[in-house]
């Protein structure tokens, strides 16, 4: 075998090796990216589920003002922390949920029944009007969580 042929064969192997390495590396990166996206999507769905539970507890007539306030704070810290990471990782605005967080807290804590029961931390039986309004609010804002999932999915 001539030297030129040997070089050509080596070249073929090297090219193939580099190609395989590149494909594997890209695939690994894509897999990592997919895993990161799936992690965040899971977190978002979990937070949405906690908000749903909170709203369900308001409807149940068994919630107390301070416990509601604690839950709102806990979820808000969770959501804000996650949005900080999402803005860094996927360039999604950190303030994405701000109007939702402000409106939900205002709707609850400005409600007449909430205010009347706040000082004694008594169980609140919210009015039918409130239950109706908060149900509408939930339905209207549920799409925010879906929008966020889509944006994460569509990001590079």
């Amino acid at each position: 075998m001539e030297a030129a042929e040997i070089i050509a064969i080596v070249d073929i192997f090297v090219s193939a090796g580099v190609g395989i390495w590149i494909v594997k590396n890209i695939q690994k990166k894509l897999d990592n990216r997919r895993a990161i996206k799936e992690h965040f999507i899971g977190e978002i769905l979990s937070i949405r589920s906690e908000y749903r539970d909170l709203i369900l507890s308001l409807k149940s007539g068994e919630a107390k003002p301070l416990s509601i306030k604690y839950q709102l704070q806990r979820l808000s810290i969770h959501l804000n922390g996650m949005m900080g990471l999402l803005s860094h990782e996927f360039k999604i605005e950190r303030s994405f949920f701000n109007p939702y967080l402000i409106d939900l807290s205002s709707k609850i804590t400005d409600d007449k029944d909430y205010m009347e029961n706040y000082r004694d931390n008594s169980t609140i039986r919210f009015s039918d009007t409130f239950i109706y309004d908060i149900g509408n609010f939930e339905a209207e804002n549920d799409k925010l969580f879906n929008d966020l999932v889509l944006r994460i999915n569509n990001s590079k």
Partner: protein
Amino acid sequence: MIYNIANSYSPMTGLRHCKISDLSGEDFYHKQLNRLFKEAYDKKEVLTIDLDGSVGGYAPSFLDEAFGNLVYDFGFDLVKTWLEIKSEQGGQWLEMIQNGTFPDWEKRRKEKKAPTYTEEHPERYVFADGKMKQKKLP
């Protein structure tokens, strides 16, 4: 000047008015924020209010009443110069105060729609006619 509400006022805060809850926005303004802002203005130092570290977070009405009264008594121009609000945990409150409370209460100040006082408070500082004054309620 840096002031953390949870450490220096109370870890737990209430709702808008003294009549409906303890540790309300009305109470915080009259017991703390009014005087702190006057001190910061006198020293020509920015007053930084740190919202983090509270137990149970904030009701929007607490923040609106406290920072709204501040704008009502001192005017938005002075407040934006000498006040900074920070929060790592509750970015939504910064947005609410900047875009809702400040413009709403500046409008209210111009229209002379006085805040609601549900309890007796000591004299407070106000900025009027280009200078600081002490004023009795209302």
